[in-house]
């Protein structure tokens, strides 16, 4: 039980002081890339559950695919170049993109598993963006 009770303080230390965002950014960039590639695939993802994707469906699926895939590529390029300025922009745009996906589920199926699954990358991106402003370079 001692370890369990230390977890909240550990998480707060990570949230407040951790500046190593590289691994998180690689994961988030790859996630955006794969999500975008899936939307660009020949099958119609939004039509699988049209009611849930009603908000996202206002914009054609291939445009979302280009936005996510393109963002993933740009962010990975920024990580490879080591440009902190571009990495910061990448994480900021990522928060925006995942928030839009999250809204589509919050307005149609707020209690589905999609809510935490799509909220997490948005929150992770927000944390990375804030950590970068604290001088995160790793």
């Amino acid at each position: 039980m001692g370890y369990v009770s230390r977890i909240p303080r550990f998480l707060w230390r990570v949230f407040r002081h951790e500046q190593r965002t590289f691994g998180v950014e690689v994961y988030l960039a790859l996630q955006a890339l794969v999500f975008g590639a899936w939307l660009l695939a020949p099958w119609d993802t939004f039509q699988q559950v049209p009611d849930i994707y009603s908000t996202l469906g206002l914009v054609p699926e291939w445009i979302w695919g280009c936005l996510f895939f393109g963002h993933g590529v740009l962010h990975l390029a920024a990580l490879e170049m080591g440009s902190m300025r571009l990495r910061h922009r990448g994480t900021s745009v990522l928060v925006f993109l995942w928030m839009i996906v999250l809204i589509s589920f919050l307005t149609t199926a707020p209690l589905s598993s999609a809510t935490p699954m799509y909220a997490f990358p948005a929150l992770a991106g927000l944390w990375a963006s804030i950590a970068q402003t604290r001088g995160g370079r790793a």
Partner: protein
Amino acid sequence: MQYTLAHYSGLIPLGAVMLWRPPVPYWLIACGFGMSWVGDTIMLETGGSWAYGYVWLPIQIGLILLALAATWAMRAAVTVGVALLTVLSVAHARPDIVLTVVGSVWILWQAHGRVTPSLYVYFGLGTVLYLLMLGADNILPAWYGYQASRLVAYGAFCWAVSWAT
């Protein structure tokens, strides 16, 4: 009353630049923000159809991207890109939404300097709340949030302008 305030709030950035006289890019951004007043006026006069007011959106996005462009090559690329995006989006059922989303992502990638908080709030949080408004059964809570985000963005812009002079 709140709808009138929301309508005319788009002119706040123009008031700030007329007061503080900052460099040209700030004027472009203020004019971009002010285009929302133009669009709302057109829609109020013509009964709410997006078609008549659509022209204000690409102008708004174009003005702000031009303000953020550092070189003439980038300005040319912005002009061509926004024109292309406008023409391509008209083929879709809701071209205003297509332009809003793609334009917002483009602006968020280009935002830099002291105007960044203002642009992040307007085109980041504001666009998210706008889409929430479109998808929600009761639009009022999201509408209030959207208008609040616009006011915060204008306030952040006024702060940026005051530092630029």
